Each structure stands twice: as structure tokens, then as C-alpha cells.
């Protein structure tokens, strides 16, 4: 199985989620993260103290899929999360050795 990790713009979350559902992905896990990269944060000024944090709020999506599904999932996310401007984010794919569904104890592909 593969773990597909996507770092995307927060407002794209719904689009990506819907696209993944449409592509047959049944589950995923989402968290709020901060990203550093090419995209620069806004300058914030608090009573004369100036901060350019370079920290941009992002959403991280983690989804584990069967090996065969991985390419399509990457494709789907890339399209749905795409705006064409800097900071659109990244997708990373890793191997997953084992998966377990806690409720049933099912393992690997059947656990997804």
C-alpha cells in the first residue's frame, strides 16, 4: 500500500475531498499545518514591530491506498488542488508495510 501525503492550500480542502470521494477513496486524515516554501507570508505589524513569518497555513491530507490506486490518487489531488499560483503545495508518496482496521482487526487492503 501507499501513503499519499498532500500539502495543499486550506481553501482547496473541499475540492480535494470531493474529487477523492469521486475517485473512490473512502477515507483520509486531515490536519492543519504551517508551510515554509517559495510562497511568502504577509508582513504583520503590531504597533511598530514588524514580522514576516513566512509561515503559511496549509492543510495536510494523508490517505493510504492500494498500490495500484496510488497513481490515480496523486493525479486526482494534483488536479483538484491546482490553482497555478505559488504555494499550491506538494504531494509525497511513501510505502506502507501494513494496515489494520482497529474496529475489526482486518488488515492491509481490506482495512482501508
Amino acid at each position, binding site marked *: 500500500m501507499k501513503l499519499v501525503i498532500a500539502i495543499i492550500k486550506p*481553501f482547496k480542502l*473541499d475540492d480535494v475531498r470531493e474529487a477523492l470521494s469521486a475517485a473512490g477513496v473512502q477515507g483520509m486524515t486531515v490536519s492543519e499545518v504551517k508551510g515554509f516554501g517559495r510562497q511568502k507570508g*504577509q*508582513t*504583520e*505589524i*503590531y504597533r511598530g514591530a514588524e514580522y514576516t513569518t513566512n509561515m503559511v497555513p496549509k492543510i495536510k491530507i494523508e490517505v493510504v491506498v492500494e498500490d495500484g490506486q496510488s497513481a490515480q490518487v496523486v493525479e486526482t489531488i494534483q488536479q483538484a488542488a491546482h490553482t497555478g499560483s505559488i504555494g499550491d503545495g506538494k504531494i509525497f508518496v511513501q510505502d506502507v508495510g501494513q494496515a489494520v482496521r482497529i474496529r475489526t482487526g482486518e488488515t492491509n487492503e481490506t482495512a482501508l
Partner: protein
Amino acid sequence: MTFDLKSLAKGAAFVALFAAAPSFAQEAAAVVAAVPDVAAAVAAAAPAVAAPVADKGDTAWMLTATALVFLMTIPGLALFYGGLVRSKNMLSVLTQVFMICAIVCLIWVTYGYSLAFTSGNEFIGSLDKIFLKGVTTSSMAATFSNGVYIPEYVFIAFQMTFACITPGLIVGAFAERVKFSSLMVFVVLWVTIVYFPIAHMVWYWAGPDFLRDAPTDYGYLWGKGALDFAGGTVVHINAGIAGLVGCLIIGKRIGFGKEPMPPHSLVMTMIGASLLWVGWFGFNAGSNLESNGLTALAMMNTFTATAGAAVAWMLVEQVTHGKPSMLGGVTGAVSGLVAITPASGFATPMTSILLGMVAAIVCYVFCTTIKNKLKYDDSLDVFGVHCVGGIIGALGTAIVADPALGGQGFLDYTVIPAVAGAYDMGTQMLTQGRAVVVTLIWSGGVSAVLFLILDKTIGLRPTVEAEREGLDISELGERAYNN
């Protein structure tokens, strides 16, 4: 407040009190009758005769009421609204409300008070008191009782808080998608062209000791005789329709109807709603301009109408969704506050409950079914709560003010001291309806013109990117929360 030409709603009980102490009332009236000027500045103008002296208890209450109305605006209204937007727009809403207060204060003392509360024509006052010219610490303002005066400065301050909160209410209708600078320009224009004239039309009159001798010195709607104790038309209908017009012209938020836009902090909304309720005691009971039994009645009605409305909204939710909600409870409460505003000095505590309940149910239908049907994006339901609730209140006042239902009726000020006038519910209802329609047309029309002009010139809406990123960062360069 609007009153019948020959009368003010202060009803029979009051008259009884006066009758029980006629020497007091007559004496006071006599003192004032010798002073030719109206509504203010008596002492300075005529030092030779004994000037009316303000009761320190009345003054104490009006100072307090002024502070309460301001508390209701900031932080009250700001938090009520702010909690309902997404966190990325929180500061934008807080800043809008805060700075509207600041800017309107400046306008008010510069020319606003003069335009609203001096004698001019029926539609607008004069510039006689521009820069508060002639107002001193011993100038007096008339109340609704013969011979009772308060320091003019406290009247100016109290009325100023009303001028501050009204445009503050409007911003909820197009929250999360308006340019701060353009909004400020709008507010300056709107209070000048809409608020001051309407306040003048509805609230300006010569005062109880002078009406007999100056029987045409009043604003247009006041002269028509509508009853509006604390500003249902001037404040709520006025702001509510302007908000609707604004949200239609500005358009929907990006993602409206597609992305979820849940309130980012109902806790702030609840704090805001509670402060609105508390501050509204100053708003309604302060509008009596005195500290007496009628003031206390206005406060009581502000309790019970609100309570009835909160309970009604929650019950309707329970029935329609199977669950009540906190946001429902507090929204109901606000709809009740809006509805009782014009009626607070006329109703009984029991009829107030009914008025509040009716308002909550009608507003509920507007904020849920009708808004969803019509698909306009009144972000925080300014129209559905303030305009609709204000109309229910304005019309309902005709009912609950009826002495036959225990209401306070109105006073005939053409005689001194004033006596109870003859009340007819049907006539009064038509009068109320006219005030509503005039306000809707004037405020709606002028607001539309203003919004359109601004839209075409300096632009009302931030860029798509700015809106997406949130107005806090894009317009103010700040985040509400940094953990």
C-alpha cells in the same frame, strides 16, 4: 421617537401622578414657559429668569444609559457579529464596528447633532449648533415630561451612541467581503444623508413645554404621530434595509453555498448577545430621558420581550430540527430586543412577551426558509433580524400601546401639563405603517445609490485573493489569533 402631533405616549398612569402633584408640574412648566428657546441652552440664553435645573437622578441615569449603549456596541455588537464570521475575518468585523463608533462620534459633534436636533424644516435640522456651538454645561434638553430637563451634553452623548450603533448594525449584512476604506466612506455619507434626516424626521420636536406655542416645530414623521419609543424605525429598520441593499449590491461571499462557513466562535457571539441585552436596558430605558416608573417599565419590557423571543426561537428549532441551538437562542433574544425597541415604553410586561414571541417566529422564518430560498447572502442576518424584527415591532406597537390592553397610550402635549390622548388602534396601525414605509424607501433608496456610486468609483469589494486569504491579513496585516 415619533409621536402624534398633539400627544406623546406616556399614558394614563403618568397623568395620574401629575394630577396628584399638580403644583409641582405647573410650577416647573411655568418656569420653563418663560424661556423662549427650545429643547436646550436655556440657562445661558436667559440668565435673568430662573433656569430649569436638571434633576441629578435623571442625569445620573442618563449618564449610565449612555455608557450602557456604548457597551452594547463595543464590545457587544462587535463580538456578536465577530463570532459569526470565519476566524480569518474576525478582526475586520471588530475593526469596522470600533472605527464606525469613532468616526460617527467625530461627525456627530461636528454637524450631526445639529442636523438632527435643531429646528430646520420637517426633513432636516439646521447648522445652528455646528461644532456644538452654544452648548454649555448649563444648557438643558427637554424630556417628555413638562418641566423636566436634563443637561444638554448628556442628551447629546446619549443620542450620539445611537448614531454610532446604527451604521455598526449594517456591516453584518456584507461581513467578510467589504473593503474597509470604502466602508468608512459609506458610513460618513450614510449617516449624513440617511441617518440624520431620519432621526430629525422621527425624533425632533419642540419639547413638552413649547409645543403649545410652537405647534409646527417638529420633524415630518413625528408630526404624523407614529409611536417609536427607542428607535425601531430610526435604528433597526433603517439599518436593516441598508444592509439588505448593501449585500445585494456587493454580492455573495466567494464560496457562499459551496464551502461551509460556520461561526468561528459562538462563545464570542454569546458574549456579544449578552452584552447587547444588558446594554439595551440603556437603549430602551434610557430613551425615556428620565429616571422614573416609566423608565422601569421600559426596562421590564426589555427583559420579558427578549426572554419570550429567545424561548420561542428555540422551541421552533426544537420542532423543526429536533434540536434547539445556542445560536438560535441568542438570535431569538436579539430579535425580541429589536421588536420591543419601539414598544418598550408602551407595552406591559405580558404583552411584551407576545410581541417578542411573534417577532422571533417571523424572523426565524426569514433567516432560514426565506433567505435560503432567495439565496441572498446577508452574512449575519441584518435584514432578517433587524429590519424584519423592527417592522414587527413598529406595527406591534400600535397594538400593545392600546390602553385597552394595558398600554400607555399617548399624551396630548398641546395642553400644559399634558393629558392622555384618545387612542384608536386602527388609526395608529396605519400611522405606524407609514413610518415603516417612509423609512424603507428613504433608507433603501439612498443606500442603494450610495453603494452603487462607491462600487463604480473606489470599489466596494476586496480582490478575490484578499477575500480568500481573509480580510484580517489582507486589509489589516494582522491575525486574530496566534498560538
